[in-house]
């Protein structure tokens, strides 16, 4: 399964704006894969949204999910 990930804010400086990762079953394994690929992410605060809902805890991912990586909001 491929997961398409959209990226916002200062995370774009680290990761670019789009990212595709293979074999990701849930958000915990997503985080682990990201941190292996981008060690600088380990010390960066960010939130994960799946289908526009903020993730609390671990969530199983399926093929149609939209996953967003979001640093602290700074609108207004």
């Amino acid at each position, binding site marked *: 399964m491929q997961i398409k990930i*959209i990226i*916002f*804010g*200062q995370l774009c*400086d680290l990761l670019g704006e789009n990212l595709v990762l293979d074999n990701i079953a849930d958000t915990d394994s997503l985080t682990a894969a990201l941190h292996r690929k981008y060690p600088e992410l380990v010390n960066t605060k960010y939130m994960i*949204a799946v289908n*526009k809902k903020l993730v609390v805890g671990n969530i199983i991912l399926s093929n149609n999910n939209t996953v*967003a990586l*979001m*640093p*602290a*909001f*700074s*609108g*207004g």
Partner: protein
Amino acid sequence: MILKKPKNIFVRGPVAASFIGASIQKHNTKTEIGGHSIFLGQVRADVIEEKKVVAIEYTAYEEMAMEQMHVIREEIFAKYQLSCMHIYHSLGKIAAGEICLFVFTSSPHRKAAIDACSEIVERIKTELPIWGKELFTDESHQWKVNK
């Protein structure tokens, strides 16, 4: 008042002062209104380590922001006796001195309009997935942090 569909709060570029004037004008037929409260966010030319902010470039996770704003809107309408609520947030590059946020609440009584307006501003800043990139004169940038 129940709103079925999330409204689009985003505008490309700055919010024009004339647009704000026109928005105010439209309310003169709503004669149950006694008070309007307006908040405007304006881009500040902050100086950070001797570099001056010339603009903020706003990006957002637009669909998620609109859904979240829809929730906020319904909660604010349930909490306060409001006649109207209008929200506009800029996207793209907004120069220092230009307006990037326009929150406009109206109510029969001033307290509801004032309290709702300031609560909406706080919630927009903390709950909507929007990011500001502060652009300096030398084309470097830093990411805005909300306090």
